[in-house]
């Protein structure tokens, strides 16, 4: 449900679309919880799409951070669907600046950590602030490489934006492209449809 797609080592011709398209298949794994039974373990075909750009901006003093809640909760940025038949594929990119971004889902639970005890992101630490952190150059504003997938009532994805030391203030600009995908349930998918489907994992599968 959260991916960083690295720059390709080779190109193919004709090119492959970067985002989900009409007619594509997506499959949600069985690890999705029962509370999200509308998608858990199901395969869908995308009937229609609509791409919606957006930008989120914060100006923060050096050494400070702010949490950006992408969900529709109070105080959130409302970047989650409200319809059970909608999947949001959200591309996230960053304008250049002296800042780092950590991902949490839900609040307080790190997306990126190592297995050794204590090897978790920590913005208060001079070293661990770099653990699991994305830099703006990892996903440029005009070539977004971070993809997140959200459905109605998914737990909130939190972006913790930390302005690194060395400057007075930084303007952190997050560029979003929300690819709205309207889903049609395929009750009995063929083996070929299952093979072609993009697998969308629950966030708990990305932590072990």
């Amino acid at each position, binding site marked *: 449900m959260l991916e960083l797609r690295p720059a390709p080592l080779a190109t193919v011709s004709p090119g492959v679309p970067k985002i989900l398209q009409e007619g594509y298949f997506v499959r949600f794994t069985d690890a999705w919880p029962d509370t999200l039974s509308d998608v858990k373990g199901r395969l869908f075909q995308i009937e229609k799409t609509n791409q919606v750009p957006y930008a989120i901006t914060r100006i923060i003093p050096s050494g400070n951070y702010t949490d950006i809640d992408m969900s529709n909760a109070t105080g959130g940025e409302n970047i989650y669907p409200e319809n059970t038949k909608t999947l949001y594929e959200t591309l996230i990119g960053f304008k250049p600046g002296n800042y780092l971004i950590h991902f949490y889902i839900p609040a307080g639970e790190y997306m990126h950590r190592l297995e050794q005890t204590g090897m978790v992101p920590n913005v208060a630490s001079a070293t661990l602030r770099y653990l699991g952190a994305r830099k703006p150059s990892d996903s440029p504003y005009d070539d977004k490489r971070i993809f997140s997938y959200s459905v109605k009532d998914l737990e909130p994805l939190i972006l913790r934006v930390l302005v690194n030391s060395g400057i007075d*203030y930084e303007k952190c600009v997050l560029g979003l492209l929300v690819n709205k995908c309207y889903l049609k349930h395929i009750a009995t998918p063929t083996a070929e449809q299952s093979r072609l489907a993009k697998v969308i994992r629950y966030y708990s599968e990305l932590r072990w």
Partner: protein
Amino acid sequence: MASIVVDMDAATKTLVAEKRNAKIKPSLIMIDNVLAAADSELTFNDVFTTSDSIVAATGAAVAGAAQTERRLRINVSTLACVSLRDELKDLIFLGLAQVVRTVAGVATLDANCHITFCYDFE
């Protein structure tokens, strides 16, 4: 790229309003003080409002607040015309770009002091 010419017919003039999703990157500043009555002390301010944030080291909450940061200051003599281009390489405005004219430390208008400000959004 865009440009604007302002006459300092007020001691404080706005050069470019804040663009929410971009920084202002000046590429050329030209100051024509030839016909002004006195030497001009020009201060280029960056005016913006911070977001609520938390100090990483202590966890203390910090409320958002209006800020005015000085980004460039230059004195230009009367009868002089000055242009800055390469010197602006690392100059960036996070919010609104504003210029303030003073004479001997006192805010002073002079419509014969002209400022050309060329910029991009980054």
